[in-house]
């Protein structure tokens, strides 16, 4: 019962942190130099790892799709499968995983170390709000960069898939590319972007919350970092399911509405 109470209290604190940071980011935004540093840290420095992940996933998807579908006469769907999978599911989720591992863990460790070495108290003692100075720039940069990184990852994935399907399995260029404009809809793209936006908020806020609540010296920082990564991965996977259902359902409702009235 005591543990449940603590967990609920921590969840309440976490939700409160999201609102406070969102409020600060809008009402009293941090300085541009702080945001720029985080945009570089989260976005630019994540490009190589996101590129490798997207590219290799696209290649594997193409190889498996071609291998599994060719004996059923469906090999022509390879391009469509790779693109749909990358845009709707794998692009946002894998990018979120990579950003969690590279950026989220570092954020948690940095803020955790600042916490246990009294640097956050030093900020407060100088009348500087740690949420505004430390969390808000990461929040703005994280939510802005995640969709861009996801688009980049998807492009790399499609490129990887194309190279395997066309370059290795000798699929005709047109067979890979032609179905894409017909079957890839705006909704596919928008749902991937919407997911990545939510994942960005989750990664930054969970990592920062765990960092800011770190206790117990160096060992505590290690525990908090591991814990934040595990929570982020779980939150991404669970929220992905609910987002998928909600986005698909809203798309269905909106399509029916537009078909009926326009």
């Amino acid at each position, binding site marked *: 019962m005591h543990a449940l109470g603590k967990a609920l209290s921590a969840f309440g604190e976490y939700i409160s942190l999201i609102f406070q940071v969102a409020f600060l980011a809008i009402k009293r935004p941090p300085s541009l130099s702080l945001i720029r540093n985080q945009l570089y840290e989260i976005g630019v420095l994540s490009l190589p790892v996101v590129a490798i992940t997207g590219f290799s996933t696209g290649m594997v998807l193409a190889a498996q799709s071609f291998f599994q579908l060719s004996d059923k006469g469906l090999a022509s769907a390879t391009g469509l499968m790779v693109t749909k999978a990358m845009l709707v599911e794998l692009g946002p989720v894998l990018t979120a995983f990579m950003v969690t591992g590279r950026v989220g863990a570092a954020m948690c460790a940095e803020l955790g170390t600042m916490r246990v070495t*009294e640097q956050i108290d*030093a900020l407060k003692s*100088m*009348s500087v709000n740690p949420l505004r100075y430390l969390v808000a720039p990461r929040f703005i940069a994280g939510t802005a960069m995640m969709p861009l990184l996801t688009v980049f990852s998807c492009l790399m994935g499609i490129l990887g898939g194309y190279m395997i399907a066309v370059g290795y399995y000798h699929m005709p260029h047109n067979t890979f590319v032609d179905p894409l404009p017909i079957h890839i809809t705006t909704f596919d793209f928008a749902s991937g972007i919407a997911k990545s936006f939510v994942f960005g908020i989750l990664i930054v806020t969970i990592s920062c919350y765990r960092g800011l609540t770190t206790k117990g010296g160096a060992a505590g920082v290690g525990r908090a970092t591991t814990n934040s990564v595990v929570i982020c991965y779980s939150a991404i996977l669970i929220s992905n399911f609910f987002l998928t259902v909600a986005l698909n359902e809203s798309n269905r409702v909106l399509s029916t509405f537009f078909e009926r009235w326009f």
Partner: protein
Amino acid sequence: MIVIENLWKAYDTLQVLKGLNLTIENGETVVILGRSGVGKSVLLRQIIGIEKPDRGTVTIEGKNLLTLPRKERQRISKQMGMLFQGAALFDSMNVAENTAFYLKQHLNLTEKEIKKRVSHALEMVDLAGTEEKMPSDLSGGMRKRAAIARLIVYRPNIVLYDEPTTGLDPITAMQINKLICRTQRELKATSIVVTHDIRSAKEVGDKLAFHHDGKILHVAPKQDFFSIQDPTLQAFFQNAWINERSHP
């Protein structure tokens, strides 16, 4: 003047402050002595507003900090500064950036003016020439001095020192004590020093206070404090002297 009345603070089931009272006059340096773990640092955290007490009042300039509107509280907080036990320099910034931090956050100064004030503060603590060094490149004593420079650069009216000499060798501790005295002279600030180092207390304090079991048991001017006939206080002195003799 700082007036602390009936201050209570607990962490889970551990009651740390139990109705603590203390008054500090303007420009006075009060040293709070007490064993480790009695809540001396906790008291400083309540005064500067890092934590909120469960009950009680902290009054500065006749205003209760705990009930003031945010802007007014911030105005008073900006005139306060604290030296942390581990110095708490920002790891990601070099010495000059650490020292300039408050100025850049709160004062509208030109880069030239900031540079001038930073150089002056670093000269005062004998750290001229270390501007580009990172905190990880500094020794414990140098870090404490850099943290003092970060304090004095914005000339606070109230300065809180949390165990300023803990973990330092006697010579460095003496340097820090001298620096605190010099800072007091230059800033004419009201100061609270928390320590269990009696030698340091004698050197920097105008008044000494004894913190025991969540309360201030005794407050007296430096010259009268050591003649207070209280078994708890005398036992603290005795243990502290024995400890100093065995670890000079």
